[in-house]
């Protein structure tokens, strides 16, 4: 069952920045890059649950604010030598509105 939810407008997310969507007990970090691509992953780093929404965004990845792991936003996987994955969500932008597919 797909469950697409509108979470706000693209403009509310700063380019190379992130905002948080609260889904019950889960925080979802929604990112926007310079190409206006939008990504969404659980806001918890696979290392020690650092809030990825607070990290520095570049290309399709984010650097975690706590210990600098780099996370691939397309998959939620840690990059480089580190291992681990945080869940990711499908996203879509239509008419400037951002939609997430919640599970």
């Amino acid at each position, binding site marked *: 069952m797909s469950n697409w939810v509108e979470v706000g407008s693209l403009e509310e997310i700063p380019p*190379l920045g992130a905002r948080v969507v609260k*889904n*019950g007990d889960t925080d979802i970090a929604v990112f926007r890059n*310079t190409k206006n691509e939008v990504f969404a992953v659980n806001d918890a780093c696979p290392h020690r649950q650092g809030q990825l929404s*607070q990290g*520095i965004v570049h*290309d399709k990845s984010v650097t975690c604010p706590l210990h600098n792991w780099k996370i691939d936003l397309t998959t939620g996987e840690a990059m480089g030598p*580190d291992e681990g994955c945080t869940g990711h969500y499908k996203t879509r932008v239509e008419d400037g509105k951002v939609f997430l597919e919640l599970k």
Partner: protein
Amino acid sequence: MKEKLVVIGNGMAGMRTVEELLKIAPEKYEITVFGAEPYGNYNRILLSPVLCGDKTIDEIMLNDLQWYADNNITLHKGVKVTAIDRKTCKVTGEDGTCAEYDRLLLATGSDSFIIPVPGHELPGVVGFRDIKNVDSMLTTARTRKRAVVIGGGLLGLEAANGLIKQGMDVTVVHLMDWLMERQMDEVSGEMLKNSLEAQGMKFLMKASTQEILGDGKVEKVKFADGSEIETDMVVMAVGIRPNIELAKQIGLHCERGIVVNDTLQTFDPKIYAIGECVQHRGQCYGLVAPLFEMAKVCANHLAKYGIGIYQGSVTSTKLKVTGIDLFSAGDFMGDETTDDIIVRDATRGIYKKVVVKDDKILGAVLYGDTIDGAWYFQLMREGTSIADIRDQLMFGQAHLGNSGHGGNVVAEMSDDTEICGCNGVCKGDVVNAITTHGLFTLDEVRAHTKASSSCGSCTGLVEQILESTLGSDYESPVAKPMCACTEHNHDYVRQAIKDQKLTRITDVFEKLNWKTEDGCAACRTSLNYYLISSWPKEAYDDPQSRFINERAHANIQKDGTYSVIPRMWGGMTTPKELRAIADVAEKFELDTVHVTGGQRIGLYGVKKHELPLIWKDLNAQGLVSGHAYGKALRTVKTCVGKAWCRFGTQDSTGLGIRLEQMSWGSWMPHKFKMAASGCPRNCAEATIKDFGVVCVDSGYELHIGGNGGIKVRATDLLKRVDTEEEVLEYSAAFIQLYREQARYLERTAPWIERVGFSYVQSSLEDDAQRKELAVRFYESQEVTQSQHDPWAQRATGGVDAHEFVPLKVVAG
């Protein structure tokens, strides 16, 4: 009459032996050299930089033809020896040239191993061994696009790197799971691969080459799994084979190489052998360090001194690809019986692993930061027990259990630490040469000691020794790139920002050809600082290029909450302020109220969305941001001074408050701390601060460059001044010099050690320069928003509101 020595092989090992021989017995032999290559003797190692276009063939010549003439050596260049008669003691070359010997030295090196797959003889298949190979690669690169390098070891990667620099599209084919598997473990091999991919190299891993296809020249490579790849050239770099044909032909005992004893003698006592073609105690070597050790011993025996034996070598590896630092030595994989001590920092691209057994180092792999390679290598070879230093081992030699003042890595090294692995030169040798011969440059050190003259990877260490021996007389010529996103170093980038008046990060990316679209967490934060410090009025301060603490004006904690530390000017507070702090702590149910190490109070466990609310309450009672989260002015610590203390000489508290009011809110390369003590008892610990004042009866002592953090450094005494006004001016000027010149994330202590205390002192002693610096600081304090409280801007001013609230709350 002189005896006759004939040398077969005009390469690095053969000629090093001749050089050593000429040093100790210049008149003993009439020397004849045969060399199959048509040149003098050159530095084969540097073929890699030649392929990259960084060096020319002329630059890598070790001994030109004149050297042979000057030393009365007959050189038959371009002549391959094809026959040796051991009865008549005569060698004959391809072209019929003959020479008789009393002693013969075989130094025939090795050949690239070409995998004998079908098609390996097609034009376009080359090895990577000599000038001819490099020429042919360069020629192909001029007209063709695609290259395949078979072999992801040291040579293969250097070849691939060179071809990329020549503009080719290069794929490296490797049989194993990770690159350089003989020198790297999986993690570092993977990091290496990522860095090389970022430079444009492509990889086919676990691929076994089956056939090379083409009509009259290379067109395709086919693999065991049936896949194919099109190419204009194939470089075979899968290994080397000792060149032992000649020795075998004359019946000398050979296994993998020509078997020699500990004096480098073969089974025929008149014939010696040296270099990559030999096998000693079961080992063949493919690096120059052991060959040079052999050369010393062999020369000694040829000179008939008969002392010294060669007992084999322990080798270490480095890779000569710009921007990549790796080091490996010994048993770096370990097993169940060993411990691995590992440090990794993915963002800075650093990985260090040391394998330890029974408190001894068995091996090490370092990636990204190799400065301690020489040290680990020394501990390993000497079997030093690391029991006492185990805890500090990974921080490196510079942090070894001291609270010493200053110093850098090389300053801590003992004189017998080996610096240049290729030539076996120790630190003491280099220091000696610098002081006795009055050397000033890298080239001079190379010429005198041979340190860093072979593979060049110890160049950085040699420069550091020059630097620490000569002090400020030495200027280091090269600095590392900022990060993998660019080739430029910090100083270059900052200069360009000033010269070209760049005011946005995107302009820097464009003007300086950044390799990545958005940079990374390391370069963006640095660039943002360089922009706003160079152009305080004009630059765009990009919140997305600031670390979260500076973006949110609070310090993120491990659980995602934040801390709030309001400013307490000069460590002073009032009942009203304390009440305000107590009130917010209660109102927002903050778990922890802590008296910090910087004379103020920290509130912990704050939820992000409550930050503006707390700030509002604090602002209402006059409390502002303490910038405990920023690369900025932190605290000015004071003691009560003359106002109360029976020893106080001046108003240290008042002075501290003035210093803090002058400089709060300014952004810096790193955090910046000050202190003012009322007398030399120094209760405010002014001599471990970035800028410290110690009051004395007759005025104020100014101290700079202290640090109480990871590595303690006591300050240097800058000057004694008479008035508070002067203290403020010196402080402003010093801060501005630091702001303008230190690299991002460099505190004053390492900065001063890098540029030299006397440089900083003379910049501040110069009245005109000091005043200009101070004025630039005041101006930047005025125009930036810095003197406005960032908390107030967010609590009531509506700045960055989105930062503190969720985008949306979806019901669970």
